[in-house]
């Protein structure tokens, strides 16, 4: 399983041409995804999470956005060079997406039935009746009560949670091998969030769907993801299994992210600490570490050199890119020491701490 990755993204570079210059939205993102695996992607707004996903399915806003380098392979098949017509066959049937806002992701003038059947018929030569039966199955699977009658409803007659269930049903209609869920629960109430996440996990597990779950909510990822990529300024800056990452965050940005969210198992009365400052303007080509300006651990070297993603233990062995033994990597010259995580600031060190 670890040899054959379902989805292989290598050094993906995406630029947007704007009047102010080229926006370096994604700067060399690489990751692997195996069947049945859930990859969490975390990072604040504008760090390139969504753009990476749109680039994978070839839906970057045209003509401004372009993939300028790297490759995306699905089962060994290069996607970035496919023609629009071929890509269309991939979308929906092999890679499906769920969007953030279920209120606006369904067409208000079409009945749920028509939208579900359209999805099925877009890729499969099936009769309307068969597609309808399938649609009822799907709605049942996502927990919509009275699916036969709800098929006749319009989106505005559904609540937000129900619409997101419908979106999940549409995304899973063709049993895609990869599911990209872009902040699937951000627009929902907390109680509904849990239900939808539960559903998503159950369905992807049953079907062995590989999932990319994008969110800025690390709490969601803790329960859902096998591995997590933390992104910052269009690059992955730390990656590892969920356990590794939560137990032993090494990049100052990851530490900042973790300290800025409330935890159930943390001490009560502990303060939430925001990360000061804002992400860099991606119009300028990055020089040095992109997190330099906001980092408490920065060294002089960080200002001029860009750190590479390297194993945190400095090991020279092969980097395992997925599975439960995935190597924990971070892009930092001066990684956070375990004792410093709780403090949230560098402690005086003895000897040269840089690796």
């Amino acid at each position, binding site marked *: 399983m670890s040899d054959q990755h379902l989805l292989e993204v290598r050094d993906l570079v995406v630029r947007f041409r704007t009047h102010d210059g080229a926006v370096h939205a994604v700067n060399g993102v690489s990751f692997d995804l195996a069947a049945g695996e859930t990859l969490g992607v975390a990072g604040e707004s504008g760090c390139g999470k969504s753009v990476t996903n749109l680039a994978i399915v070839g*839906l970057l806003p045209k003509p401004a956005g372009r993939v300028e380098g790297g490759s995306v392979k699905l089962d060994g098949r290069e996607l970035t060079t496919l023609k629009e017509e071929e890509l*269309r066959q991939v979308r929906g049937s092999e890679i499906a997406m769920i969007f953030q806002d279920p209120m*606006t992701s369904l067409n208000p003038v079409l*009945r749920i039935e028509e939208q579900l059947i359209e*999805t099925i018929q*877009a890729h499969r030569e099936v009769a309307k009746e068969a597609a309808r039966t399938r649609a009822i199955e799907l709605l049942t699977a996502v927990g919509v*009560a*009275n699916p036969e009658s709800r098929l*006749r409803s319009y989106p505005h*007659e559904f609540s937000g949670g129900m619409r997101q269930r419908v979106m999940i049903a549409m995304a899973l209609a063709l049993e895609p091998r990869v599911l990209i869920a872009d902040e699937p629960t951000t627009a929902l109430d907390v109680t509904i969030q849990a239900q939808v996440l539960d559903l998503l996990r159950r369905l992807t597990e049953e079907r062995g769907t590989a999932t990319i779950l994008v969110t800025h909510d690390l709490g969601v990822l803790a329960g859902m993801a096998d591995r997590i990529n933390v992104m910052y300024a269009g690059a992955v800056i730390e990656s590892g299994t969920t356990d590794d990452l939560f137990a032993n965050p090494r990049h100052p940005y990851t530490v900042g992210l973790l300290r800025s969210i409330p935890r159930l198992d943390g001490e009560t009365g502990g303060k939430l600490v925001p990360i000061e400052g804002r992400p860099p303007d991606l119009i300028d080509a990055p020089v040095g570490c992109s997190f330099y300006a906001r980092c408490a651990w920065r060294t002089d070297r960080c200002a001029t050199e860009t750190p590479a993603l390297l194993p945190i233990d400095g090991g020279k062995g092969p980097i395992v890119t997925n599975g439960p033994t995935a190597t924990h990597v971070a892009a930092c010259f001066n990684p956070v020491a375990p004792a410093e995580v709780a403090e949230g600031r560098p402690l005086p060190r003895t000897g040269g701490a840089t690796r």
Partner: protein
Amino acid sequence: MFRAALVDPQIARASRGLWGDAARRLRRNRPALVGLVCIVLFALAAILAPFISPFDPYAMNGSSLDAPSLTHLFGTDLLGRDIFSRVLYGAQISLFVGVGAVVLALVIGGVLGAIAGGFGGRIDGVIMRLTDVFLSIPSILLAIGIVTALGRGMVQLMFAIAVSYAPTFARLLRGSLLALREADYVVAARTIGASRMRILVRHMLPNALTPLIVQATLVLATAIIDIAGLGFLGLGPADPRTPEWGTMLVDARRFMQTAPHIVVFIGGAIVISAIGFNLLGDGLRESLDPKLKR
């Protein structure tokens, strides 16, 4: 104990749909209902003209310039023709030419707008510059020019008015389509691999149609006035005896001092039909606006 209340109340209510919702809101809108009554009156007059008009609109049925009476409800004109009958038949012409012109304008403008907004790029630029050219000419002037070039007649009249309104429709549709291109459900449709044509026809056009419907209703009002206006300028139907409202108005104008009722009745017919479409158009705009839903 609250179990029973947990049953989804939406299941009990039958799905009403977009048009059902709109009709319900329209019924609560008083001005729109007044407009609807005006339009129904106008349409009934036009359709039933051959059956309910008491006299032949082309024949002399009384003495010249009679005042309104029980026999001649609206009086008679210079040639002794019954004005009530002529107004009824005039409604027929206005309705026929007006609706025909607006439908034609919708088709021309709709196709151009759909191509421009749906495909974008160079073709979009070409179509939009073309509409700019047409929009820069005042619509009545454009219509006068077309009628002059094509000669007088009902079909020419229809075409002239259609051409002067088509650019507005093209712009409107293109604008809504452009806004919809970035809509989440359009992007979502692309992620499921729907084809470009399918997205345009099935996802974008139905959502872009509402402003077009509203505009068409409002334009019908102006079209009726334009028809009368062109008739007034002597560019109406080729046969001067035709009971076209504008043409009739020109004839009646000469007797405004001695027989003002003629102008009042004809003008009233034009005003009522135009106001009717105007009020209904405004009502439709309100009831079809998705932001006012629920």
